[in-house]
């Protein structure tokens, strides 16, 4: 409560003002106290001075009394024993003299001989002053006597002076009483001051002003009385008998042999402190005005300069909190702290507004993106299906409706297991779902699968699908893209059937070719064998012509046999190889060159092979056929004195290496380049160049079986260059490794 009270800005300002005024207040009070102290000291000093002055006046009075008495002892009227004359004299003497209460001659026994006063009763000879006079025969002063102790009923100081006889004996005592009434006049006292004389019992002997009210009464017991009776001189602040607070200074009266009365001078404190109090009051009043003005300034200034701005800021903050993002403080951004605060606040508000705008824009973009995604999903050619962790369908797009026959509103909320999963797979589906949620193990997730799904009408549909889990917080859902692959399956089956048929017909063809050639070779063998036997066994029975015919039959059958063999080779090499391996072209070419060594040496020919031919992917038989035929042809169709065949690498492009086989042979006219590769195509008479004419056909079929191509560049007389492209082994290996990875 207090904290909240002090948390108010205005309250704090007020407190600050008060704190600021406090030292001034302290200073004023301190100054006031100081001034009072000074004034008190001054007053005490004055009072003491007056008291001492009064006391000393009393002392002078005693002295003058002594002189008076000493003088009177020499007055005959006094020393004569004529009481009447004495009385008259003394009465005259005392007339108008109020300083003494009375004066008289007292016999040693106390009898009053004569007196200024009409006294009849003897005086108390037991009083000390009287005895002292008798004993010392000197002037003696008695203690103050209170009114009850005197014959006159007035307070007085008694004196005695011996009247000595001629022989020096005390004849009588001249006694006088010094009146204390003169104190009552106190002519030197400042206005407002009081003077009191008390005896050692505290009884007021005299006083000013209004002595008649107080004389004879005892000073009330209290600090003042104690302090005075302690002896003095001293000062004290106390209430007087009239109850007025005063500063008193007191001294013992010195006229008497021992302190028996005291004079106290009192200044009313209100008078003493009047100036100081006045100053203090004035200063405090001034300070109060200043403080009030400061408070007013703090309150109004705080209102004008602080509160208004702070409240504006608070209001803007509240508006901002309430969602009004364009709220600004509306305050000037000056250099002051509040200006900086306002600038900071406005900048913050602007930043928040900007961020909110960005956020809203992002949300809008996200919403649009979601909308777009939804549209894409809706329009997708594939079915999009989502299920939650319990297997309940949550998403079902148009394509899913078309494929499975359930419309969206029917499908959503149903178990996937109750809709498109065939009866026999349902348990496995639920088990798999459970296992994934428990262990995170989902072997069928994140990959494409082909399964059989159930249409609403009960028929089974082959589908391709990929399922992926989506985590949202602590729950999982699963989405799948499902494709109806019925048509593709049908096409695939058709293709597979065709491929099978094709393979079958290829096999049939090979078998056909094989059996044809085999069967063809059988009669040929007979022909060959028996013409040979005829030649061997009956040569002597045939003439030259007959033998020539037989030789022709034999040659023809041999050529037929070669053609059949080459047809067999062609049919074998035209198939794709059963398996392909890394084949070193360098080694194959080296082997071919070695097998042709006899021919090379016989004709002074050369086979040049580049180093570092790359390995290819194929099978050895086909690669041997390709390079064997090309090199053999290069040497065969060659009239050069130094037939040369050069084998090298032309280029490597993509996955293929292009090899070339260049000869310096007879060359081929461009118009024949295409038909060169036909089976049993010959450009030259058999007599000119041997061979069946199947070599290039075998090269072409073998190259194509390995996935390559063959072509040539040639001009008649300028030799020929054959190009063969074959798959690079390194590239194929890299691809396989990549697939494996």
């Amino acid at each position, binding site marked *: 409560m207090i904290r909240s009270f002090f948390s108010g800005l205005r309250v704090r300002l007020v407190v600050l003002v008060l704190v600021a005024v406090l030292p001034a207040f302290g200073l004023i009070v301190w100054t006031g106290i100081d001034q009072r102290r000074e004034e008190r000291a001054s007053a005490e000093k004055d009072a003491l001075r007056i008291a001492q002055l009064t006391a000393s006046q009393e002392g002078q009075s005693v002295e003058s009394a002594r002189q008076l008495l000493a003088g009177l002892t020499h007055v005959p009227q006094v020393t004569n024993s004529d009481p009447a004359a004495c009385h008259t004299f003394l009465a005259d003497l005392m007339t108008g003299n109020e300083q003494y209460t009375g004066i008289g001659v007292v016999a040693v026994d106390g009898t009053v001989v004569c007196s200024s006063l009409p006294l009849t009763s003897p005086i108390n000879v037991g009083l000390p002053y009287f005895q002292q006079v008798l004993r010392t025969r000197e002037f003696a002063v008695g203690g103050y006597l209170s009114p009850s102790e005197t014959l006159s009923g007035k307070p007085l100081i008694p004196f005695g002076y011996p009247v000595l006889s001629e022989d020096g004996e005390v004849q009588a005592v001249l006694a006088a009483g010094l009146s204390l009434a003169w104190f009552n006049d106190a002519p030197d006292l400042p206005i407002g001051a009081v003077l009191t004389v008390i005896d050692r019992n505290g009884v007021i002997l005299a006083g000013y002003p209004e002595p008649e009210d107080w004389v004879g009464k005892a000073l009330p017991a209290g600090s003042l009385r104690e302090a005075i009776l302690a002896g003095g001189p001293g000062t004290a602040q106390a209430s007087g008998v009239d109850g007025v607070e005063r500063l008193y200074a007191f001294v013992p009266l010195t006229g008497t042999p021992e302190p028996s009365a005291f004079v106290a001078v009192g200044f009313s404190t209100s008078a003493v402190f009047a100036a100081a109090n006045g100053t203090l009051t004035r200063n405090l009043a001034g300070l109060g005005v200043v403080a009030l003005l400061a408070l007013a300034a703090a309150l109004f200034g705080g209102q004008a300069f602080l509160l208004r701005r702070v409240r504006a800021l608070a209001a803007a903050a509240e508006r901002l909190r309430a969602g009004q993002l364009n709220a600004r403080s509306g305050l000037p951004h000056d250099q002051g702290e509040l200006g900086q605060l306002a600038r900071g606040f406005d900048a913050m508000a602007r930043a928040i507004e900007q961020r909110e705008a960005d956020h809203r824009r992002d949300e809008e973009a996200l919403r649009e993106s979601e909308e777009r995604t939804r549209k894409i999903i809706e329009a997708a050619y594939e079915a999009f299906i989502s299920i939650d962790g319990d297997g309940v369908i949550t998403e079902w797009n148009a394509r899913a409706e078309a494929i499975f026959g359930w419309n969206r509103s029917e499908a959503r909320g149903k178990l996937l297991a109750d809709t498109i999963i065939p009866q026999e797979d349902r348990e496995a589906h639920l088990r798999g779902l459970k296992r994934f949620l428990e262990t995170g193990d989902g072997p069928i997730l994140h990959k494409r699968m082909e399964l059989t799904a159930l249409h609403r009408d009960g028929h089974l549909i082959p589908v391709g699908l990929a399922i992926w889990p989506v985590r949202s917080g602590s729950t999982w859902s699963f989405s799948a893209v499902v494709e109806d692959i019925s048509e593709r399956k049908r096409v695939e089956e058709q293709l597979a059937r065709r491929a099978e048929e094709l393979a079958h017909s290829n096999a049939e063809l090979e078998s056909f070719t094989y059996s044809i050639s085999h069967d063809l070779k059988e009669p040929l063998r*007979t022909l*060959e064998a028996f013409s040979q036997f005829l030649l061997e066994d009956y040569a002597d029975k045939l003439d030259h012509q007959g033998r020539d015919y037989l030789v022709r039959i034999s040659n023809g059958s041999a050529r037929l046999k070669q053609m059949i063999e080459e047809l067999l080779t062609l049919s074998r090499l035209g198939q794709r190889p059963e398996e392909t391996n890394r084949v070193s072209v360098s080694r194959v070419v080296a082997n071919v060159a070695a097998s042709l060594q006899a021919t090379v040496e016989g004709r002074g020919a050369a086979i040049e092979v580049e180093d570092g031919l790359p390995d290819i992917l194929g099978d050895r038989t086909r690669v041997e056929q390709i390079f064997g035929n090309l090199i053999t042809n290069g040497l065969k169709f060659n009239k050069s004195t130094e037939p040369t065949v050069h084998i090298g690498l032309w280029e490597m492009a993509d996955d293929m290496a292009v090899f070339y086989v260049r000869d310096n042979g007879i060359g081929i006219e461009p118009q024949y380049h295409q038909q060169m590769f036909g089976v049993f195509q010959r450009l030259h008479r058999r007599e000119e160049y041997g061979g069946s004419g199947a070599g290039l056909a075998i090269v072409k079929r073998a190259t194509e079986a390995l996935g390559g191509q063959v072509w040539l560049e040639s001009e008649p007389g300028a030799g020929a260059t054959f190009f063969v492209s074959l798959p690079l082994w390194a590239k194929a290996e890299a691809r396989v490794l990549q697939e494996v990875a």
Partner: protein
Amino acid sequence: MSGNGDRFRPIRVLLVEDNPDDVAITERAFDKSAVVSRLIVARDGQEVLDLLASDEPRPDLVLLDMKLPKLSGLEVLAKIRRDEELSTIPVIMLTASNRPQDVLASYRLGANSYIQKPVVFERLTRALEVLGQYWFDVATLPCST
């Protein structure tokens, strides 16, 4: 010939061949050779099995064509090699081609040699030389008692 007695009886050669031309060619090759032989001809796979199962004396050598009606030559070879009685009879396969897979199949099933047809003198002689080694190493020489 008979004067030579059993010691010099002609070796019994069982030729399994359905083509009469090839039978004639093979007979000529044996005629040309120094081997004194008696050629028995079977025309198909079943016939040769029946013949081998009969009381006829066991042949010293079988020339078996791979391509035969009914049972193929390789099937016949397999049956011979599985038969305890017949398993040691030397068998030379006759093939129309020298396709590597045919040759390999022959040896795998236990052929002693093979001859690419036509069975002319030189080829027969080379095959018999190979067989001579076999006879020395494994089997009883047919000319010994």
